[in-house]
């Protein structure tokens, strides 16, 4: 088990180093001078040169790459070109919005998607199943930014119950912050819930064909208990895999949803830093997302063992 973990961790490190190199090279090739973007159409050459020195852009590329990697390892992500504050501070502030938002969205998606999928499987080929499948189709087909705007129209412009966007900050208390995150979380959760419902249903239908299910029913276990203890638990493996994969979709979704709701989260930071050519922030964020995706996939693999004891022993 230890040797397996070590191997996995080494592979993880190699993946991340490769990713860092690709990210750096791609941004290096991209045309455009961050100093020119900052100083605009009237800037004098002396001012441009001074700013380039200040940003460290006058050093050769390999030096900058090594400085960057060294900084990443020691937790120093550099200074944002546009905001002129440490990138760690920027990302820290934005995490306080994106992480709660993503957590709320995932919990909502699970709370809606898995029970719906289970209900559909239990009512296979009956009206309940059809209703869930219609919901899942709609959930997948509706773009989440449009759904977000619809929610704003109904709950902000229409009823005035919730703010149309923005984030007051956690310092103003839990309730206003929670209210600001509710609509975006629902908009993010809908397509996830739809996917989860479909996957849960399919996995459960497949599991229901297994011999041990027939055995359980034959020895007198109730239908309800069989569905919960035997079918749903065994069906959770593909569901957890999908949840892990959905994480990257969630981040992509957050970029759009945070813009629709003007939330100061990581997704909006990605968008703003690309638009303002704040390459150091782009680099750090893409690297952060890479790391998160790789780590989550790793954790998902470990989770298989928790859900299914047979996989633990096989290792």
């Amino acid at each position: 088990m230890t040797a397996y973990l070590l191997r996995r961790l080494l592979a993880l490190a190699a993946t991340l180093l490769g990713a860092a190199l690709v990210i750096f090279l791609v941004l290096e090739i991209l045309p455009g001078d961050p100093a020119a973007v900052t100083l605009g159409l009237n800037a004098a050459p002396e001012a441009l040169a001074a700013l380039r020195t200040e940003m460290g852009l006058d050093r050769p590329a390999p030096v900058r790459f090594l400085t960057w990697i060294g900084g990443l390892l020691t937790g120093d992500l550099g200074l944002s070109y546009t905001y002129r504050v440490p990138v760690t501070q920027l990302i820290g502030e934005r995490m306080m919005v994106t992480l709660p938002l993503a957590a709320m969205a995932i919990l909502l998606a699970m709370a809606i998607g898995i029970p719906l999928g289970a209900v559909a499987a239990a009512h296979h080929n009956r009206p309940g199943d059809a209703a869930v499948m219609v919901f899942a189709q709609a959930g997948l087909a509706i773009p989440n930014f449009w759904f977000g705007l619809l929610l704003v129209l109904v709950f902000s412009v229409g009823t005035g119950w919730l703010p149309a966007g923005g984030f007051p900050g956690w310092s103003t208390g839990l309730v206003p912050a929670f209210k600001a995150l509710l609509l975006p979380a629902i908009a993010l959760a809908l397509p996830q819930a739809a996917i989860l419902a479909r996957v849960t249903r399919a996995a459960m239908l497949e599991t229901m064909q297994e011999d041990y299910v027939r055995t359980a029913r034959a020895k007198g276990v109730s239908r309800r208990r069989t569905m919960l203890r035997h079918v749903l638990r065994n069906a959770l493996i593909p569901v957890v895999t999908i949840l892990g994969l959905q994480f990257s979709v969630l981040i992509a979704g957050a970029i759009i949803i945070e813009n629709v709701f003007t939330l100061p989260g990581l997704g909006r930071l990605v968008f703003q830093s690309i638009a303002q050519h704040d390459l150091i922030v782009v680099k750090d964020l893409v690297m952060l997302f890479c790391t998160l995706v790789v780590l989550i996939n790793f954790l998902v693999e470990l989770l298989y063992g928790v859900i299914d004891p047979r996989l633990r022993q096989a290792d």
Partner: protein
Amino acid sequence: MTTRRDLLAGVGVAALATPFPLRAFAQAKDSVVIGMTLEPPTLDPTSGAAQAIREVVLQNIFEGLVAMDRTGKIVPALAESWTVSPDGLTYTFKLRGNARFHDGTPFSARDVKFSFERAVAPDSTNAQRWIFTPIAAIEAQDPLTVVIKLKQPTANFVYGLAWGDAIIVSPATAADNKTKPVGTGPFKFARWNRGDRLEFERNAEYWGPKPALAKAVFRFIGDPQAQVAALRAGDIDAFTNLSAPEAIPQLKADPKLKVTLGKTEGETILAINNAKAPFSDVRVRQAIALVLDRKTIALGVYGFDLDYIGSHFSPLHPAYVDLTGTYPVDIAKAKSLLAAAGFPNGFSCTLRLPPPAYARRGGEIIAALLAQIGINASIEPLEFPQWLERVFRGKDFDLTVIAHTEPLDIGNYARDDYYFQYKNPEFKALMARIDVTIDETERNKLYGEAQRMLARDAVNGFLFILPKLTVTKADLEGMWTDWPLPLTPLAEVRWR
């Protein structure tokens, strides 16, 4: 019997009766929430060219020796008054004795000397050095008198001092102004939640009339639909310049809101590479001017009429001359001019477009208009950094669409290295004369001549002035609705 509808109505009334009037009352007293499209990258206008920086801090947090008022007139600010020597070389500024920085330090002549010398220091990243380059020497004669000697008479010297790049900063706090700005203005910096909002509070020690607002919040909403939703939901009290022109009719119909279409200094042009064949031939440029139907372009981009221009000058400036009739739309004449230039069947070229809607949507329409005379412009969309690199710096383009938002920037046509490469010695001589003409009437006459020269040479396709779409709650007063400089001064904003 209580129906479900009654119940719902009751809930609605209860919801309206309790929290809302309280909230409205609190806001009606002394605070305001103002929406803006772009967030300022920093809060120090001496560190970068971003318009959003000036828009929030100038005349709120920071002040210059002079200021521009909402009509574009230069008025005293930190300088009470000033005199110019007859030779136009010595400016003597009398400073206000009762101005203080927000950290309590009294404002004095030494701060002026420090600020202007800092702007031209070798490590300065000031985006508008031209304001300071005419200065030969600055002397703090006494704490309230500054004498500035110029190298040569400079007509727009005082005009430049009203810009955000010429704010007066304190030596003690200048280095931290990017994140914790300390100025002398009517508002003090309170806090900044990056990505969402920026908060100012009233400066009770302000030297001038005390502002009516105790608190002002700027919120940054980039998405046009989200801007409209925030206005209609009442989350914000005003939006400085809405990016959703298509929503204007809908917002105008709302009695709670007031919509004003104002002017800016943003000359929007079809820029032409004057150094590149076939555009180096004035007949080709004139042919282009003859097909640019400004109304069609404006209606296509905004859905309503705009202020059209026939040269590179804003109607907000007193020297403006209306030259929109120089090239009335005339396809036949355009075709014959092209034929005379050797292109009876037209030619192919590229049209590189930066991201703003006026460029992308406007560019599509312009390409269609040019096709009428056989000019086949293929559209290439570019992101802004790439546009700066390739078009603006590299001069690698045929045609492009861009708004020049900096005020009084007609002087760029005298710069040989400027991206559209006009290179006309006659025009350069004229601009040099304007620079040393101190008499305003005479100078405005020369500006008129310069405008006519650019129109005659059809240097670029002159289209329209970017509109400022101000939306406020109906009972909010005092917001700027024109932009002689892109600012949002809050000192005169109040609730009725």
